[in-house]
C-alpha cells in the first residue's frame, strides 16, 4: 500500500466507513496531503463503497477542501466587507510582494499558497487572515511581514 492508501485506511478506521464520515475523512486527507488528488478521491470512494462521482461532488462543494496542491501553509485573507473596508488589499499586496507570488498561486518551494476567503468572523478586528488554522487579526502591512517572517524562518531553539 502507498502512503495515501494508508492514510485513507487509517482515517476510515478512526471515523468509520459510513457516508456521514465522509467529511472528516476528506478533511483528514487535506490536512496531511494539502489537497485532494483525483487518486485520493477515488481511493476514498473505494474505501467507503461510494460512487467516486459522489465523493468528487461533495469534496468540490466545500471551499476549504482543495483539489489542487496547496502549500504547507495556506494563507487565506478575508475579503468580506469590513476587511475590505479596512485595507485588505494592502495586506494582499504586502504578502504578494514578500512571497513573490500572486493571489491564487503557491511559492515554487511549495511552502505557501495565497488565497482569498469569505467572512472569517473577525469583522471587529479587521483585516484578518488565516494561516492554516491560525487566525491573525488587525493586520497592517508591517504586521503581516513580521508574521510571515516567522513562518519563513522558523525560530531556532
Amino acid at each position, binding site marked *: 500500500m502507498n502512503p495515501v492508501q494508508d492514510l485513507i485506511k487509517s482515517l476510515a478506521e478512526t471515523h468509520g466507513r459510513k457516508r456521514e464520515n465522509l467529511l472528516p475523512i476528506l478533511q483528514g486527507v487535506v490536512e496531511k496531503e494539502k489537497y485532494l488528488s483525483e487518486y485520493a478521491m477515488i481511493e476514498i470512494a473505494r474505501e467507503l463503497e461510494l460512487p467516486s462521482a459522489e465523493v468528487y461532488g*461533495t469534496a468540490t*462543494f*466545500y471551499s476549504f477542501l482543495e483539489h489542487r496542491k496547496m502549500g504547507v501553509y495556506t494563507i487565506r485573507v478575508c475579503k468580506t466587507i469590513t476587511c475590505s473596508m479596512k485595507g485588505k488589499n494592502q495586506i494582499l499586496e504586502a504578502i504578494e510582494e514578500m512571497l513573490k507570488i500572486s493571489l491564487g498561486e503557491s511559492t515554487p518551494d511549495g511552502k505557501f499558497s495565497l488565497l482569498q476567503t469569505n467572512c472569517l*468572523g473577525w*469583522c*471587529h*478586528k479587521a483585516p484578518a487572515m488565516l494561516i492554516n488554522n491560525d487566525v491573525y487579526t488587525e493586520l497592517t502591512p508591517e504586521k503581516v511581514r513580521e508574521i510571515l517572517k516567522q513562518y519563513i524562518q522558523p525560530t531556532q531553539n
Partner: protein
Amino acid sequence: MAFDTYLLKRADFIFKNENDWEKILDRTLKLPPNEIINELMSSELKGRGGAGFPTGLKWKLTAEAPADEKFVICNADEGEPGTFKDREILTLVPYKVLTSMAVCAYVIGAKVGYIYLRGEYKYLVPELRKAIKEFEYFCNEVKHDFRIKLCLGSGAYICGEETALFESMEGKRGEPRNKPPYPTSVGFKQSPSVINNVETLAHTFTIFKYGAKKFYDLGVQYSRGSKLFSVSGDTPIPGIYELELGMSLQDFVNEFGDGDTKAVQVGGASGFLVPRKKFQETAIGYKGKLSGISLPTGGSMMLFNSSRSMYNVLDNYLEFFREESCGQCTPCRVGCQQLYNGIKAVKRGEKPTSYLDKLLKLTETMKLTAKCGLGQSVANSFSSIVENFREEMIY
C-alpha cells in the same frame, strides 16, 4: 415616534461567568420536561440565529414528535458577514451551550448532541473538546446519558441553513432540503431534531438559572430578552455587545456611530440597509411590533460613514452571494450572477440606468422562487441599497 422614549439598554447575562453550571444542570434535569418547555415558552425567547422561531415551541414540537431516535444540534456555523458573537460564546462560556444542549436532550428524549462548527473556527477545537469531555464526565455523574460530538464544516456559508447543515453532517454537499417537513419532525438522519443557534442555547441557560420572568422583563413586546450584537465597520468601538431588544436604530447609532454614519446594514449581507433618514423610525427586534419598522437580525450591525461607496458595499455582498450560493436552484444560482454582473454593467455605462429596475424585479422573483433563505434574502440587501442609494449605483 413610537420609540422616542426607549433608550439603549445594556444587559450582561451571556458573558457573565457562572460557576454553578453543574448545579443548574442538576436542578433543571430534575424538573418534568413539560415544566421546562413552559418556562421557555413564557420567556418568549426566539431563535437568535436570525429567523426568530420561538425556541420553546421548537423544543415542544420535537418532544412530541414520535420517534425512537432524536437529536439536539448546536448550529455553530456562523458565517454571516459581520457576525462573530457565536465564536466568542464558544470561547468564553462554552459550558452554557453544553448545559442547554443537555437539558434539551432530556426534554426531547435525545441521547446524542452535535455541535456543527464552521471550518474557519477550527482552532477552537482542542479547547472545545476539553470542555465537552469535562461536561460529559459530569453528565455521567448525575446519571444523564448524553454525549456530544463535534462536526467540522469546511468553508461553506450555506451550511448554516439548518437543512443544509444536516446534509453536510450526513456527508453530502450542503444543499438545503425542501421545507416542510421541518427539522422538528424530519431532521438529522431523518429523525426529529432540535437545531438551535449557539446564542439561543446560551440564552436558555440564562432562563434556567434566573427564570423566564427575568428574561421576559427585558426588551419590548414581541421582542423579549437581550441579544448579542456584533458591531463592526465605521465605529470607534467595534466589538460584541449585549443589548435589550427594541432599541431604535437612532439610539444605536448615537452609541456606536462615529458621528458621520450614513447607513447601517442590519443583519449582515442577507439583511437590510437602513439609510440615515430612517434611523429614527426603525427598531431592532422581531416582526410583529405594532408600529414603525422592526428589523430582525442575527446580530450583525455594520456601520458605514459618508466616506464609503454603497456601490462597493453592494458589489462585495453580491460577490459573496454568488460564491456562496449552493447552486441547487436556478433563481439563486443564476440570479446572484445576474445581479453581480448587472450592477457592474450599469456602473460602466453598458446598460441604461433603468436596468436597475429590471434587477429589482429579478430580486422579487428570487424572493418568491428561491428554495432557501440564502437566495430569498439577497433581495433584502439589494433592494434596500439600490432604492436608497440609487445615484451611487450609477455615478
